[in-house]
Protein backbone atom coordinates (compact mmCIF):
# COMPACT_ATOMS: atom_id res chain seq x y z
CA UNK A 1 0.00 0.00 0.00
CA UNK A 2 1.66 3.19 1.21
CA UNK A 3 4.85 1.33 2.14
CA UNK A 4 6.70 2.59 -0.90
CA UNK A 5 5.14 6.05 -0.91
CA UNK A 6 8.00 8.24 -2.06
CA UNK A 7 7.93 11.79 -0.68
CA UNK A 8 11.18 12.60 -2.41
CA UNK A 9 9.49 12.50 -5.79
CA UNK A 10 7.14 15.25 -4.65
CA UNK A 11 9.95 17.21 -3.03
CA UNK A 12 12.07 17.16 -6.17
CA UNK A 13 9.16 18.19 -8.35
CA UNK A 14 8.09 21.13 -6.14
CA UNK A 15 9.84 23.93 -8.07
CA UNK A 16 8.43 22.69 -11.37
CA UNK A 17 4.95 22.13 -9.92
CA UNK A 18 4.66 25.58 -8.37
CA UNK A 19 6.88 27.89 -10.42
CA UNK A 20 5.65 26.54 -13.74
CA UNK A 21 2.36 24.83 -13.04
CA UNK A 22 0.73 26.80 -10.24
CA UNK A 23 1.85 30.13 -11.69
CA UNK A 24 0.07 29.28 -14.93
CA UNK A 25 -3.05 28.11 -13.07
CA UNK A 26 -3.26 31.19 -10.84
CA UNK A 27 -2.56 33.66 -13.65
CA UNK A 28 -5.18 32.04 -15.85
CA UNK A 29 -7.69 32.01 -12.98
CA UNK A 30 -7.12 35.65 -12.06
CA UNK A 31 -7.25 37.02 -15.61
CA UNK A 32 -10.21 34.88 -16.65
CA UNK A 33 -12.09 35.87 -13.48
CA UNK A 34 -11.55 39.59 -14.14
CA UNK A 35 -12.42 39.22 -17.83
CA UNK A 36 -15.38 36.99 -17.04
CA UNK A 37 -16.82 39.38 -14.48
CA UNK A 38 -16.45 42.40 -16.78
CA UNK A 39 -17.95 40.61 -19.78
CA UNK A 40 -20.55 38.91 -17.58
CA UNK A 41 -21.63 42.27 -16.17
CA UNK A 42 -22.05 43.67 -19.67
CA UNK A 43 -24.10 40.61 -20.67
CA UNK A 44 -26.24 41.01 -17.55
CA UNK A 45 -26.82 44.68 -18.43
CA UNK A 46 -27.80 43.65 -21.97
CA UNK A 47 -30.15 41.05 -20.56
CA UNK A 48 -31.88 43.63 -18.35
CA UNK A 49 -31.90 46.41 -20.92
CA UNK A 50 -35.03 47.60 -22.65
CA UNK A 51 -33.42 47.83 -26.07
CA UNK A 52 -35.25 45.39 -28.37
CA UNK A 53 -33.12 42.40 -29.33
CA UNK A 54 -30.35 42.85 -26.76
CA UNK A 55 -31.94 40.76 -23.98
CA UNK A 56 -32.57 37.93 -26.45
CA UNK A 57 -29.00 37.98 -27.75
CA UNK A 58 -27.65 37.88 -24.20
CA UNK A 59 -30.01 35.10 -23.20
CA UNK A 60 -29.08 32.94 -26.18
CA UNK A 61 -25.38 33.42 -25.45
CA UNK A 62 -25.77 32.47 -21.79
CA UNK A 63 -27.97 29.45 -22.42
CA UNK A 64 -25.76 28.27 -25.25
CA UNK A 65 -22.59 28.38 -23.16
CA UNK A 66 -24.31 26.78 -20.20
CA UNK A 67 -25.54 23.82 -22.24
CA UNK A 68 -22.05 22.81 -23.31
CA UNK A 69 -19.41 20.89 -21.36
CA UNK A 70 -16.34 22.98 -20.68
CA UNK A 71 -14.13 20.31 -22.24
CA UNK A 72 -15.95 20.67 -25.55
CA UNK A 73 -15.71 24.46 -25.37
CA UNK A 74 -11.97 24.19 -24.71
CA UNK A 75 -11.59 22.08 -27.85
CA UNK A 76 -13.82 24.44 -29.84
CA UNK A 77 -11.78 27.51 -29.06
CA UNK A 78 -8.47 25.73 -29.38
CA UNK A 79 -9.29 25.09 -33.03
CA UNK A 80 -11.47 28.13 -33.66
CA UNK A 81 -9.33 30.95 -32.22
CA UNK A 82 -6.64 30.70 -34.95
CA UNK A 83 -9.33 31.07 -37.62
CA UNK A 84 -10.99 33.97 -35.81
CA UNK A 85 -7.59 35.61 -35.51
CA UNK A 86 -7.05 35.17 -39.23
CA UNK A 87 -10.47 36.60 -39.97
CA UNK A 88 -9.94 39.60 -37.67
CA UNK A 89 -6.49 40.44 -38.98
CA UNK A 90 -7.06 39.41 -42.58
CA UNK A 91 -3.97 37.21 -42.49
CA UNK A 92 -3.10 34.63 -45.12
CA UNK A 93 -3.38 31.59 -42.89
CA UNK A 94 -4.81 30.77 -39.44
CA UNK A 95 -2.97 32.69 -36.72
CA UNK A 96 -1.04 30.62 -34.22
CA UNK A 97 -2.10 31.61 -30.72
CA UNK A 98 -0.31 30.28 -27.69
CA UNK A 99 -1.87 27.80 -25.32
CA UNK A 100 -2.20 30.49 -22.69
CA UNK A 101 -4.07 32.99 -24.89
CA UNK A 102 -6.32 30.28 -26.20
CA UNK A 103 -7.19 29.11 -22.67
CA UNK A 104 -7.67 32.67 -21.46
CA UNK A 105 -10.12 33.44 -24.27
CA UNK A 106 -11.97 30.18 -23.64
CA UNK A 107 -12.34 30.62 -19.90
CA UNK A 108 -13.25 34.30 -20.15
CA UNK A 109 -16.01 33.66 -22.67
CA UNK A 110 -17.24 30.52 -20.90
CA UNK A 111 -17.23 31.86 -17.35
CA UNK A 112 -18.81 35.14 -18.50
CA UNK A 113 -22.04 33.19 -19.02
CA UNK A 114 -21.98 32.05 -15.38
CA UNK A 115 -20.82 35.39 -13.98
CA UNK A 116 -23.55 37.15 -15.96
CA UNK A 117 -26.23 35.13 -14.18
CA UNK A 118 -24.73 36.14 -10.84
CA UNK A 119 -24.54 39.81 -11.80
CA UNK A 120 -28.07 39.71 -13.17
CA UNK A 121 -29.32 38.47 -9.81
CA UNK A 122 -27.18 41.14 -8.16
CA UNK A 123 -28.59 43.97 -10.25
CA UNK A 124 -32.12 42.71 -9.73
CA UNK A 125 -31.54 42.57 -5.98
CA UNK A 126 -31.14 46.36 -5.87
CA UNK A 127 -34.51 48.01 -5.14
CA UNK A 128 -36.02 49.77 -8.16
CA UNK A 129 -36.12 52.99 -6.15
CA UNK A 130 -32.33 53.24 -6.28
CA UNK A 131 -32.35 53.52 -10.06
CA UNK A 132 -35.25 55.96 -9.85
CA UNK A 133 -33.40 58.09 -7.29
CA UNK A 134 -30.28 58.11 -9.45
CA UNK A 135 -32.31 59.16 -12.51
CA UNK A 136 -34.15 61.77 -10.49
CA UNK A 137 -30.80 63.33 -9.60
CA UNK A 138 -30.02 63.55 -13.30
CA UNK A 139 -27.51 60.69 -13.52
CA UNK A 140 -27.37 59.07 -16.95
CA UNK A 141 -27.79 55.29 -17.41
CA UNK A 142 -24.04 54.68 -17.36
CA UNK A 143 -23.45 57.04 -14.43
CA UNK A 144 -26.22 55.43 -12.44
CA UNK A 145 -24.94 51.93 -13.27
CA UNK A 146 -21.35 52.85 -12.49
CA UNK A 147 -21.90 54.82 -9.32
CA UNK A 148 -25.08 53.48 -7.78
CA UNK A 149 -26.33 50.12 -9.06
CA UNK A 150 -23.22 48.12 -9.92
CA UNK A 151 -21.20 48.96 -6.80
CA UNK A 152 -24.09 47.69 -4.68
CA UNK A 153 -24.78 44.68 -6.89
CA UNK A 154 -21.11 43.80 -6.93
CA UNK A 155 -20.87 44.09 -3.20
CA UNK A 156 -23.97 41.99 -2.54
CA UNK A 157 -22.75 39.34 -4.92
CA UNK A 158 -19.07 39.38 -3.94
CA UNK A 159 -19.25 36.11 -1.98
CA UNK A 160 -21.01 34.36 -4.87
CA UNK A 161 -18.58 35.81 -7.40
CA UNK A 162 -15.66 34.57 -5.31
CA UNK A 163 -17.23 31.13 -4.93
CA UNK A 164 -17.60 30.98 -8.69
CA UNK A 165 -13.95 32.00 -8.98
CA UNK A 166 -13.01 29.00 -6.82
CA UNK A 167 -14.98 26.84 -9.26
CA UNK A 168 -13.10 28.54 -12.10
CA UNK A 169 -9.80 27.79 -10.34
CA UNK A 170 -10.75 24.10 -10.26
CA UNK A 171 -12.04 24.20 -13.84
CA UNK A 172 -8.71 25.47 -15.17
CA UNK A 173 -7.35 21.98 -14.47
CA UNK A 174 -9.24 20.90 -17.60
CA UNK A 175 -6.64 22.57 -19.83
CA UNK A 176 -4.95 19.21 -19.21
CA UNK A 177 -6.79 18.03 -22.33
CA UNK A 178 -4.61 20.40 -24.39
CA UNK A 179 -1.43 19.03 -22.72
CA UNK A 180 -0.79 22.41 -21.14
CA UNK A 181 1.51 22.63 -18.12
CA UNK A 182 -0.86 24.03 -15.54
CA UNK A 183 -0.55 22.72 -11.98
CA UNK A 184 -2.25 19.41 -12.74
CA UNK A 185 -0.50 19.20 -16.10
CA UNK A 186 2.85 19.57 -14.38
CA UNK A 187 1.96 16.96 -11.77
CA UNK A 188 0.80 14.63 -14.51
CA UNK A 189 3.99 15.06 -16.52
CA UNK A 190 6.15 14.24 -13.51
CA UNK A 191 3.86 11.31 -12.70
CA UNK A 192 4.27 9.83 -16.18
CA UNK A 193 8.01 10.49 -16.34
CA UNK A 194 8.84 8.95 -12.96
CA UNK A 195 6.06 6.39 -12.94
CA UNK A 196 4.82 7.91 -9.65
CA UNK A 197 1.10 8.38 -10.27
CA UNK A 198 0.02 7.71 -6.69
CA UNK A 199 2.30 10.33 -5.15
CA UNK A 200 1.75 13.02 -7.71
CA UNK A 201 -2.03 12.78 -8.03
CA UNK A 202 -2.54 12.53 -4.27
CA UNK A 203 -0.30 15.52 -3.78
CA UNK A 204 -2.18 17.48 -6.46
CA UNK A 205 -5.46 16.62 -4.73
CA UNK A 206 -4.13 17.78 -1.35
CA UNK A 207 -2.89 21.07 -2.81
CA UNK A 208 -6.15 21.80 -4.62
CA UNK A 209 -8.13 20.85 -1.54
CA UNK A 210 -6.09 23.05 0.78
CA UNK A 211 -6.32 26.10 -1.46
CA UNK A 212 -10.03 25.72 -2.21
CA UNK A 213 -10.97 24.85 1.36
CA UNK A 214 -9.18 27.84 2.86
CA UNK A 215 -10.51 30.12 0.13
CA UNK A 216 -14.08 28.99 0.73
CA UNK A 217 -13.68 29.48 4.49
CA UNK A 218 -12.52 33.03 3.83
CA UNK A 219 -15.47 33.62 1.49
CA UNK A 220 -17.84 32.42 4.21
CA UNK A 221 -16.31 34.82 6.69
CA UNK A 222 -16.65 37.64 4.19
CA UNK A 223 -20.25 36.66 3.60
CA UNK A 224 -21.04 37.03 7.30
CA UNK A 225 -19.39 40.44 7.37
CA UNK A 226 -21.28 41.64 4.31
CA UNK A 227 -24.48 40.32 5.86
CA UNK A 228 -23.90 42.36 9.02
CA UNK A 229 -23.21 45.62 7.20
CA UNK A 230 -26.38 45.38 5.17
Amino acid at each position, binding site marked *: *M*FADFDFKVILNALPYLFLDGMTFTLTLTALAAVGGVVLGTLIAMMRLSGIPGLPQVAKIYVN*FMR*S*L*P*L*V*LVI*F*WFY*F*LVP*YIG*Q*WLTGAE*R*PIQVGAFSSSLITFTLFEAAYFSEIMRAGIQSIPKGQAAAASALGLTYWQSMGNVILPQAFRNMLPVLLTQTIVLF*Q*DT*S*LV*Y*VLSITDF*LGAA*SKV*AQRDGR*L*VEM*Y*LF*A*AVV*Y*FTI*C*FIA*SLLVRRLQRRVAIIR
Partner: protein
Amino acid sequence: MNYNWNWGIFFDLSPEGTGTYADMLLSGLMWTIVTALCAWVIAFAIGSVVGVLRTLPSRAAQAVGNAYVELFRNVPLLVQMFLWFFVLPEVLPESWGTWLKQLPNAPFYTAVVCLGFFTASRVAEQVRAGIQALPRGQRMAGTALGLTTAQTYRYVLLPNAYRIILPPMTSEFLNNLKNTSVALTIGLLELTARARSMQEFSFQVFEAFTAATILYILINLVVVTVSGMLERRFAVPGR
Protein backbone atom coordinates in the same frame (compact mmCIF):
# COMPACT_ATOMS: atom_id res chain seq x y z
CA MET B 1 -11.60 31.51 -43.96
CA ASN B 2 -9.68 28.84 -45.82
CA TYR B 3 -11.34 25.86 -44.23
CA ASN B 4 -12.80 23.12 -46.39
CA TRP B 5 -16.28 22.40 -45.18
CA ASN B 6 -17.57 18.91 -45.79
CA TRP B 7 -20.91 18.24 -44.19
CA GLY B 8 -21.16 14.91 -45.97
CA ILE B 9 -18.40 13.61 -43.72
CA PHE B 10 -20.90 12.17 -41.26
CA PHE B 11 -21.88 9.52 -43.79
CA ASP B 12 -18.30 8.45 -44.48
CA LEU B 13 -17.11 5.28 -42.81
CA SER B 14 -14.91 5.86 -39.79
CA PRO B 15 -11.52 4.14 -39.79
CA GLU B 16 -12.56 2.19 -36.69
CA GLY B 17 -14.64 -0.04 -38.92
CA THR B 18 -17.76 0.16 -36.77
CA GLY B 19 -19.85 2.28 -39.10
CA THR B 20 -20.05 5.88 -40.20
CA TYR B 21 -18.88 8.93 -38.30
CA ALA B 22 -22.53 9.59 -37.48
CA ASP B 23 -22.75 6.17 -35.83
CA MET B 24 -19.62 7.00 -33.89
CA LEU B 25 -21.11 10.23 -32.53
CA LEU B 26 -24.40 8.55 -31.67
CA SER B 27 -22.60 5.83 -29.76
CA GLY B 28 -20.80 8.60 -27.89
CA LEU B 29 -24.14 10.22 -27.13
CA MET B 30 -25.42 6.90 -25.79
CA TRP B 31 -22.44 6.53 -23.43
CA THR B 32 -22.87 10.11 -22.26
CA ILE B 33 -26.50 9.47 -21.37
CA VAL B 34 -25.94 6.07 -19.76
CA THR B 35 -23.02 7.35 -17.68
CA ALA B 36 -24.99 10.41 -16.58
CA LEU B 37 -28.03 8.36 -15.56
CA CYS B 38 -26.05 5.76 -13.59
CA ALA B 39 -23.99 8.44 -11.86
CA TRP B 40 -27.17 10.30 -11.00
CA VAL B 41 -28.61 7.29 -9.20
CA ILE B 42 -25.55 7.18 -6.93
CA ALA B 43 -25.51 10.96 -6.56
CA PHE B 44 -29.16 11.11 -5.62
CA ALA B 45 -28.90 8.34 -3.03
CA ILE B 46 -25.69 9.50 -1.35
CA GLY B 47 -26.58 13.16 -1.75
CA SER B 48 -29.92 12.70 -0.01
CA VAL B 49 -28.32 10.87 2.93
CA VAL B 50 -25.53 13.43 3.28
CA GLY B 51 -27.97 16.31 2.91
CA VAL B 52 -30.18 14.86 5.65
CA LEU B 53 -27.15 14.30 7.90
CA ARG B 54 -26.40 17.99 7.72
CA THR B 55 -29.85 18.92 9.01
CA LEU B 56 -29.97 16.46 11.93
CA PRO B 57 -29.68 17.85 15.44
CA SER B 58 -26.66 15.62 16.13
CA ARG B 59 -23.38 17.52 15.90
CA ALA B 60 -21.53 14.38 14.82
CA ALA B 61 -23.94 13.75 11.95
CA GLN B 62 -23.58 17.34 10.80
CA ALA B 63 -19.80 17.07 10.93
CA VAL B 64 -19.79 13.91 8.82
CA GLY B 65 -22.10 15.51 6.27
CA ASN B 66 -20.07 18.71 6.14
CA ALA B 67 -16.81 16.81 5.78
CA TYR B 68 -18.19 14.86 2.84
CA VAL B 69 -19.32 17.98 1.03
CA GLU B 70 -16.10 19.88 1.68
CA LEU B 71 -13.96 16.96 0.55
CA PHE B 72 -15.70 16.41 -2.76
CA ARG B 73 -16.32 20.06 -3.53
CA ASN B 74 -12.80 21.31 -3.03
CA VAL B 75 -10.93 18.94 -5.34
CA PRO B 76 -11.30 19.41 -9.12
CA LEU B 77 -13.38 16.71 -10.77
CA LEU B 78 -10.54 15.84 -13.12
CA VAL B 79 -8.22 15.17 -10.17
CA GLN B 80 -10.90 13.03 -8.54
CA MET B 81 -11.21 11.12 -11.80
CA PHE B 82 -7.44 10.40 -11.74
CA LEU B 83 -7.58 9.36 -8.09
CA TRP B 84 -10.32 6.81 -8.74
CA PHE B 85 -8.73 5.55 -11.93
CA PHE B 86 -4.97 5.60 -11.36
CA VAL B 87 -4.50 5.83 -7.60
CA LEU B 88 -7.23 3.70 -6.04
CA PRO B 89 -6.12 0.36 -7.59
CA GLU B 90 -2.58 1.01 -6.33
CA VAL B 91 -3.45 1.74 -2.72
CA LEU B 92 -5.96 -1.11 -2.31
CA PRO B 93 -4.76 -4.57 -1.24
CA GLU B 94 -3.03 -6.05 -4.24
CA SER B 95 -5.62 -8.67 -5.22
CA TRP B 96 -8.41 -6.05 -5.22
CA GLY B 97 -6.29 -3.66 -7.20
CA THR B 98 -5.55 -6.27 -9.84
CA TRP B 99 -9.22 -7.13 -10.07
CA LEU B 100 -10.09 -3.46 -10.55
CA LYS B 101 -7.46 -3.00 -13.24
CA GLN B 102 -8.70 -6.02 -15.15
CA LEU B 103 -12.34 -4.99 -15.09
CA PRO B 104 -13.67 -4.76 -18.62
CA ASN B 105 -14.98 -1.29 -19.37
CA ALA B 106 -13.13 0.16 -16.36
CA PRO B 107 -13.39 3.78 -17.60
CA PHE B 108 -17.18 3.51 -17.55
CA TYR B 109 -17.43 2.13 -13.99
CA THR B 110 -14.84 4.59 -12.75
CA ALA B 111 -16.64 7.51 -14.38
CA VAL B 112 -19.98 6.45 -12.90
CA VAL B 113 -18.60 6.08 -9.37
CA CYS B 114 -16.48 9.21 -9.53
CA LEU B 115 -19.26 11.39 -10.95
CA GLY B 116 -21.76 9.85 -8.55
CA PHE B 117 -19.69 10.72 -5.46
CA PHE B 118 -18.80 14.15 -6.85
CA THR B 119 -22.35 15.10 -7.79
CA ALA B 120 -23.61 13.73 -4.47
CA SER B 121 -21.85 16.59 -2.70
CA ARG B 122 -23.80 19.07 -4.81
CA VAL B 123 -27.08 17.20 -4.41
CA ALA B 124 -26.44 17.18 -0.65
CA GLU B 125 -26.18 20.97 -0.69
CA GLN B 126 -29.54 21.24 -2.44
CA VAL B 127 -31.24 18.73 -0.15
CA ARG B 128 -29.96 20.54 2.92
CA ALA B 129 -31.08 23.90 1.53
CA GLY B 130 -34.48 22.44 0.65
CA ILE B 131 -35.04 21.02 4.12
CA GLN B 132 -33.88 24.21 5.79
CA ALA B 133 -36.17 26.25 3.57
CA LEU B 134 -39.20 24.49 5.04
CA PRO B 135 -40.98 26.29 7.88
CA ARG B 136 -39.56 25.10 11.22
CA GLY B 137 -43.07 24.28 12.34
CA GLN B 138 -43.15 21.35 9.89
CA ARG B 139 -40.57 19.40 11.83
CA MET B 140 -42.23 20.26 15.13
CA ALA B 141 -45.64 19.29 13.80
CA GLY B 142 -44.26 15.92 12.72
CA THR B 143 -42.70 15.35 16.12
CA ALA B 144 -45.84 16.53 17.92
CA LEU B 145 -47.86 13.94 16.01
CA GLY B 146 -45.59 11.26 17.44
CA LEU B 147 -43.59 10.54 14.27
CA THR B 148 -40.02 9.43 14.80
CA THR B 149 -37.24 11.53 13.30
CA ALA B 150 -36.89 9.07 10.43
CA GLN B 151 -40.63 9.13 9.79
CA THR B 152 -40.69 12.91 9.92
CA TYR B 153 -38.03 13.04 7.23
CA ARG B 154 -39.60 10.30 5.14
CA TYR B 155 -43.19 11.52 5.18
CA VAL B 156 -43.01 15.24 5.91
CA LEU B 157 -39.68 16.95 5.26
CA LEU B 158 -38.21 15.15 2.26
CA PRO B 159 -41.35 15.05 0.09
CA ASN B 160 -41.66 18.81 0.47
CA ALA B 161 -37.96 19.50 0.15
CA TYR B 162 -37.65 17.53 -3.11
CA ARG B 163 -40.48 19.57 -4.60
CA ILE B 164 -38.81 22.83 -3.65
CA ILE B 165 -35.43 21.83 -5.05
CA LEU B 166 -36.60 20.34 -8.32
CA PRO B 167 -35.42 23.34 -10.38
CA PRO B 168 -31.89 23.48 -8.88
CA MET B 169 -31.72 19.68 -9.07
CA THR B 170 -32.42 19.95 -12.79
CA SER B 171 -29.38 22.13 -13.24
CA GLU B 172 -27.35 19.76 -11.09
CA PHE B 173 -28.43 16.93 -13.37
CA LEU B 174 -27.39 18.95 -16.38
CA ASN B 175 -24.02 19.69 -14.76
CA ASN B 176 -23.65 15.98 -14.10
CA LEU B 177 -24.42 15.28 -17.74
CA LYS B 178 -21.91 17.82 -19.00
CA ASN B 179 -19.32 16.55 -16.51
CA THR B 180 -19.34 13.10 -18.12
CA SER B 181 -17.08 14.70 -20.75
CA VAL B 182 -14.31 14.95 -18.13
CA ALA B 183 -14.15 11.15 -18.23
CA LEU B 184 -12.67 11.31 -21.72
CA THR B 185 -9.36 11.80 -19.90
CA ILE B 186 -9.58 8.26 -18.51
CA GLY B 187 -10.71 6.84 -21.84
CA LEU B 188 -14.51 6.90 -21.68
CA LEU B 189 -15.76 7.09 -25.25
CA GLU B 190 -18.51 9.60 -24.59
CA LEU B 191 -19.78 12.30 -26.94
CA THR B 192 -16.96 14.86 -26.65
CA ALA B 193 -14.35 12.09 -26.94
CA ARG B 194 -16.01 10.81 -30.09
CA ALA B 195 -16.18 14.28 -31.62
CA ARG B 196 -12.50 14.65 -30.81
CA SER B 197 -11.57 11.36 -32.44
CA MET B 198 -13.68 12.19 -35.47
CA GLN B 199 -11.69 15.42 -35.72
CA GLU B 200 -8.43 13.52 -35.45
CA PHE B 201 -9.39 10.93 -38.05
CA SER B 202 -11.08 13.17 -40.59
CA PHE B 203 -9.58 16.64 -39.91
CA GLN B 204 -13.13 18.03 -40.18
CA VAL B 205 -12.85 19.85 -36.84
CA PHE B 206 -15.80 22.14 -37.03
CA GLU B 207 -18.30 19.65 -38.41
CA ALA B 208 -17.45 17.24 -35.61
CA PHE B 209 -17.75 19.85 -32.85
CA THR B 210 -20.86 21.41 -34.36
CA ALA B 211 -22.57 18.02 -34.34
CA ALA B 212 -21.57 17.41 -30.72
CA THR B 213 -22.73 20.91 -29.76
CA ILE B 214 -26.14 20.36 -31.34
CA LEU B 215 -26.50 17.00 -29.60
CA TYR B 216 -25.65 18.53 -26.20
CA ILE B 217 -28.18 21.31 -26.75
CA LEU B 218 -30.82 18.75 -27.70
CA ILE B 219 -30.26 16.71 -24.54
CA ASN B 220 -30.44 19.91 -22.50
CA LEU B 221 -33.79 20.73 -24.07
CA VAL B 222 -35.11 17.25 -23.38
CA VAL B 223 -34.00 17.37 -19.74
CA VAL B 224 -35.49 20.81 -19.19
CA THR B 225 -38.77 19.70 -20.76
CA VAL B 226 -38.95 16.54 -18.66
CA SER B 227 -38.13 18.50 -15.53
CA GLY B 228 -40.93 20.95 -16.31
CA MET B 229 -43.31 18.01 -16.69
CA LEU B 230 -42.16 16.54 -13.37
CA GLU B 231 -42.65 19.89 -11.70
CA ARG B 232 -46.25 20.06 -12.88
CA ARG B 233 -46.87 16.39 -12.12
CA PHE B 234 -45.75 16.74 -8.51
CA ALA B 235 -46.99 20.26 -7.87
CA VAL B 236 -48.99 20.55 -4.66
CA PRO B 237 -52.44 21.98 -5.45
CA GLY B 238 -53.08 25.39 -3.94
CA ARG B 239 -49.42 26.33 -3.61
